[in-house]
């Protein structure tokens, strides 16, 4: 008998009803994360139909997209971008209160971006289904969960039933051969995968990341890798849980009471040696260099040492026009206006440490404005305990309150038209970081190096001061 993939094992563990030709499967949801932007209309449907939230105990709410990253004024008022943003946050508070859902509110030391708090609180469990009205829910796949983004109608479905209709996706294994070179991060691995697969190469698949280079990653790195699965079109990305996973989760408040039994059960979650994948690609990990994007989609990514590729069609040409770039130009010649470090992709403590390593004893170039935004209150606290905030501030960067910030630019943190922003976030779409803003995606190290140099820079060229 052929073995099973990690995905198949997790799928089967959560299957309430198998799929049939005329009906999708019904999957049980172990953790439903909600936030202010994609939940209000779902609660509206519940109200219209007189329905209750079936399992508030398996639902967790946080506030991240619309929240200001500047502190409150002397009278305690937060500088919301618009009254609508403030109303959206208030609406979530009301909905959580009405339905008895735990909300990590702005004064809660556990609050943060939705994909930060699940893992930090130990609520993201290997082998479970995690969903959220947010495409970067794939982040939680780092723990061997089946985690994917859903629309608001489906948020309503999960609130009302704790389950979801779902067709079984296909499987694609991304096998990294060998180990990555020093200075190469999980972000670079992810951009290399997306560049290889293209923007829709993963559509219809669940990705499984495997190989020594993946095993060598910390949980933070694995989360970055899985986070970006959707940028290749895959709704979910997964890594088989191992000792690194268990070490991260051990002792966190949301883990199962019977820890030994949980670990025993989670330890069975790996792809069998004879498991068959629908598709498989192999990537030479040692050949990956620090990666940056040059276009308006994450798959338009090349090594930072390369030149801007020539446009081969009208779409690629329009992308270069938007970016103000010409084919053949050196990427290292691109002048930078802003640098953003943060987001559910790279807002974790390891990311903060990488940035601090490059900024220690240096200054952000005079014409560059640099924003460092921790992904959660816990990361902010940890960074301050380690003195990283002082390094950022002394270098001339801003150190903010947690939130999605410039990744989606809903809260007032954004660039000006025409500006080049080197960003550790996940999307370089036209206008994503402000109307007319030109986004270059990069790792935290590359972003920090670029801030210091004032041009797009290879982090390996910067001398690190101890």
């Amino acid at each position: 008998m052929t073995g099973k993939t990690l995905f198949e094992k997790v799928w089967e563990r959560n299957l309430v009803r198998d799929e049939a030709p005329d009906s999708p499967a019904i999957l049980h949801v172990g953790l439903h994360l909600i936030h202010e932007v994609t939940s209000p209309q779902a609660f509206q449907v519940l109200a219209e139909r007189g329905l209750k939230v079936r399992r508030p105990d398996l639902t967790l709410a946080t506030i991240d997209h619309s929240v200001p990253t500047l502190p409150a004024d002397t009278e305690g008022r937060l500088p919301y971008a618009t009254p609508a943003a403030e109303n959206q946050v208030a609406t979530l508070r009301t909905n959580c209160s009405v339905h008895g859902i735990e909300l990590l509110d702005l004064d809660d030391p556990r609050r943060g971006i939705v994909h930060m708090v699940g893992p930090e609180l130990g609520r993201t469990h290997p082998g479970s289904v995690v969903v959220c009205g947010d495409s970067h829910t794939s982040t939680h796949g780092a723990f061997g969960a089946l985690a994917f983004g859903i629309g608001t109608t489906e948020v309503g479905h999960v609130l009302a039933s704790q389950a979801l209709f779902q067709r079984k996706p296909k499987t694609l294994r991304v096998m990294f051969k060998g180990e990555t070179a020093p200075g190469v991060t999980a972000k670079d691995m992810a951009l290399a995968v997306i560049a290889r697969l293209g923007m829709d190469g993963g559509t219809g698949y669940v990705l499984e990341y495997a190989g020594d280079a993946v095993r060598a990653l910390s949980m933070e790195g694995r989360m970055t890798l899985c986070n970006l699965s959707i940028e290749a079109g895959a709704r979910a990305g997964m890594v088989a849980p191992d000792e690194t996973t268990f070490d991260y989760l051990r002792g966190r408040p949301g883990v199962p009471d019977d820890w030994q039994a949980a670990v025993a059960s989670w330890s069975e979650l790996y792809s069998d040696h004879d498991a068959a994948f629908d598709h498989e690609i192999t990537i030479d990990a040692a050949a990956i260099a620090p990666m940056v994007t040059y276009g308006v989609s994450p798959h338009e990514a090349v090594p930072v040492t390369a030149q801007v590729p020539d446009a081969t069609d009208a779409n690629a040409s329009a992308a270069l026009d938007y970016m103000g770039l010409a084919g053949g130009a050196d990427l290292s010649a691109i002048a930078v206006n802003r640098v953003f470090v943060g987001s559910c992709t790279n807002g974790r403590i390891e990311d903060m440490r990488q940035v601090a390593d490059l900024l220690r004893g240096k200054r952000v170039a005079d014409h560059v404005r640099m924003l460092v935004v921790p992904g959660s209150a816990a990361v902010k606290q940890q960074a301050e305990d380690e003195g990283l905030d002082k390094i950022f501030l002394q270098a001339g960067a801003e150190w903010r309150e947690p939130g999605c910030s410039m990744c989606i630019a809903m809260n007032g943190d954004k660039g000006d038209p025409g500006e080049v922003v080197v960003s550790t976030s996940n999307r370089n779409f036209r206008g994503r970081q402000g109307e007319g803003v030109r986004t270059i995606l990069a790792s935290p190290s590359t972003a920090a190096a670029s801030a210091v140099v004032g041009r797009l820079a290879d982090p390996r060229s910067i001398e690190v001061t101890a």
Partner: protein
Amino acid sequence: MKPFGQVTSKTVAVPTTNVDTDQIIPARFLTTTDRDGLGDAAFRDWRFDQDGNSLDHPINAINPDTHAILVAGDNFGCGSSREHAAWALDAFGVRAVISTSFGDIFKSNALKNGLLPVEVDEATLDLLMKEPNRELTIDLEEEEIRFGNHVVAFATEPFARRCLLQGSDPLTVLLDAVPDIETFEREHGRAS
């Protein structure tokens, strides 16, 4: 749910590939708590400059009464999961989008809002791109599109198709399964 049976309308062709949901509705319009009223936000930055002046763009031809079918480049609706993209397209007057492929989450969202994503082969898309403004019928019952002498088959996930044809709500069907969900929770130690 808003039903979808058949639509006959003229096409609007936009050859751009990888149209992400940030293009369909920029994030600054996502602070709403309603589903309605997002038509003005649809493709906002394609239709207006930063000062609010109208821009020349083929998408402006969309009209619910005459031009309700959008023909778009490959991988339409990729990126963010925002269902606001489907709501905005619907309010803007789009009844169906024809492309060679769609973002997974967008496709799922569209099907729940009476907006039909129609996946065709490259040759058909090329033909429709070359001749915009042509009248076309999309028939979900027969799962075919018809224009001129052409009849092109397409496939829709059967459960979503049934819900669209009947205008029935998938949530009702899901709620019927709650006893099974409760049994599952008991048997797997997940009861509250």
